[in-house]
């Protein structure tokens, strides 16, 4: 294809693809897999798989409590993963990196402990929490629960017709009553990259804390948590070529220190008596029970892998593929992209509608051609409602996506139109 050498593509793309064994497999009918669902979950490189297998085969033991050699090795591997994650996101301290089971749990941890907090962080009656209309349900529902329980008020930024945050009323919306501003860095549906630092500046002017859902940002952008302006930042392992079952909450030390524990149990305590307990310092205060050890170790290998390639290079690749995809999709009659049309202002998830064919049917026919995409509301029902659509089809690329795969998508969409007998 003419696009084989788009500027910005990863120079070693063919080598990188060989790192991901699943990309070699074929589907029913001997069709090659065209995996365009990475915003849903990314595929895993061999080094992540091998690291996890090696841990289970050779080093498996519980951490921080086993006095034997395996226990020491397992603890070291788990804590080394924390160091790797801290370095990857520019955390000033490894202790600010809390392992959770996923991004949803990380966000719920913040929302719950803000409800239980006493002092300046406490969210109480009459306080306001501000979110946005483009959030994933996991950055909406915890804040609904918090505000309902505490008699606080939930407010949100609306969206412009182009799918950007409408910041025209920011000074009214984020005011002296605002305790929390929670927003996504990159929309999982519209692809929009939000001006997190600008919103954070206003939030900090009024003394609010900023919670950033970086589930789609950390996989695609070079992330420096301090420069982002966030006070808390959440993401999940399985979207950054790591395993499922492991998520990350980063928080500024002073805030994590001030918040009460989330779950109670083993590992999170300092000492326990029948009457009361005292708690471990961060991050262990927030890590009750045996954590997902091998998953954390796998995540460490995953962020090492991405760091080795370089997040600037991954970002450039995503932008090149996204621009090429937007061009290709524009050639399909009756197809409308939801969200910004300029690739430099968006992430690699592109949701679209195809006139006359429901997204489930689009996804089903694409699947019959080996092209894996997601169809539905992508856990962003309010964002869909904002644009008057019930659901959409979403393609999402990653560092292993090739221009040829985008061509395959466009061709399969043409086939879908002919299958449903739509004339151009």
């Amino acid at each position, binding site marked *: 294809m003419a696009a084989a050498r788009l500027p910005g593509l990863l120079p070693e793309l063919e080598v990188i693809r060989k790192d991901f064994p699943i990309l070699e497999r074929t589907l*029913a*009918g001997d069709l090659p897999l065209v995996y365009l669902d990475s915003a849903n979950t990314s595929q895993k490189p061999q080094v992540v798989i091998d690291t996890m297998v090696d841990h289970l085969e050779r080093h498996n033991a519980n951490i921080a409590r086993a006095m034997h050699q395996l226990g020491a090795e397992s603890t070291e591997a788990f804590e080394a993963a924390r160091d790797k994650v801290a370095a990857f996101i520019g955390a000033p301290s490894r202790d600010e990196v809390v392992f959770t089971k996923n991004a949803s749990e990380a966000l719920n941890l913040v929302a719950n402990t803000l409800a239980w907090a006493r002092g300046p962080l406490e969210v109480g009656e009459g306080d306001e929490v501000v979110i946005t209309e483009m959030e994933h349900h996991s950055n909406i529902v915890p804040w609904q629960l918090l505000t309902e329980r505490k008699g606080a008020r939930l407010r949100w930024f609306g969206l412009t017709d182009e799918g950007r945050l409408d910041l025209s009323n920011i000074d009214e919306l984020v005011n002296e009553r605002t305790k929390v501003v929670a927003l996504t860095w990159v929309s999982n549906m519209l692809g929009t990259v939000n001006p997190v630092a600008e919103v954070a500046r206003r939030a900090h002017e009024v003394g609010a804390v900023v919670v950033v859902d970086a589930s789609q940002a950390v996989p695609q952008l070079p992330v420096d948590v301090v420069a982002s302006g966030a006070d808390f930042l959440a993401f999940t392992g399985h979207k950054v070529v790591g395993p499922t079952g492991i998520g990350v909450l980063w928080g500024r030390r002073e805030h994590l220190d001030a918040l009460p524990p989330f779950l109670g149990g083993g590992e999170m305590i300092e000492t326990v008596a029948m009457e009361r307990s005292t708690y471990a310092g961060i991050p262990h205060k927030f890590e009750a029970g045996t954590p997902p050890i091998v998953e954390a170790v796998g995540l460490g290998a995953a962020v090492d892998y991405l760091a080795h390639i370089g997040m600037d290079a991954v970002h450039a690749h995503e932008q090149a593929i996204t621009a090429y995809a937007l061009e290709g999709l524009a050639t399909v009659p009756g197809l409308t992209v939801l969200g910004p049309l300029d690739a430099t202002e968006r992430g690699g998830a592109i949701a679209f509608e195809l006139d006359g064919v429901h997204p*489930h*049917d689009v996804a089903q026919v694409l*699947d*019959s051609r080996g092209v894996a995409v997601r*169809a539905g*509301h992508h856990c962003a029902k309010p964002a869909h409602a904002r644009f008057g659509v019930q*659901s959409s089809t979403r393609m999402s690329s990653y560092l292993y996506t090739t221009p040829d795969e985008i061509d395959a998508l466009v061709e399969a969409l043409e086939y879908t139109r002919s299958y*449903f007998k739509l004339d151009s």
Partner: protein
Amino acid sequence: MAATDIDALYQEIILDHYKNPQHAGLREPYEAEVHHVNPTCGDEVTLRVHLEDGKVSDVSYDAVGCSISQASASVLTELVIGKPVDEAMAIHDTFLQLMQGKGQVEPDEDVLEDGIAFAGVARFPARVKCALLSWMAWKDATAQSLEATNG
């Protein structure tokens, strides 16, 4: 799935019903109205049932969803409108068995008529709930209508 397999899913009958849904729209009178959603994909149906003299006198609906769920609502209304409630419930049970049969149940054309076109859907686990959405809504609304008329 290869292209031939999705042909088993998208039977002509299904595509016909999708393009020309029968008995669509919401009508009066009715004893019960229900709203069912499929939380995983967001498909929705609002469905009304009107019973008269022990028969399903009317089923009217407003549905948003994929071709399978839309066509299924259309076939449902064709099959149950005008039937005694007991017989309609039996048709429902037969359709449910077919959909839950993982593709192993031989459809009974005498009972299901156009509904046999959904036999292929049973082989696509992710789509079975699409086909069942309006049927579940109908069963719910019919039970409520019976309560309203008998109560």
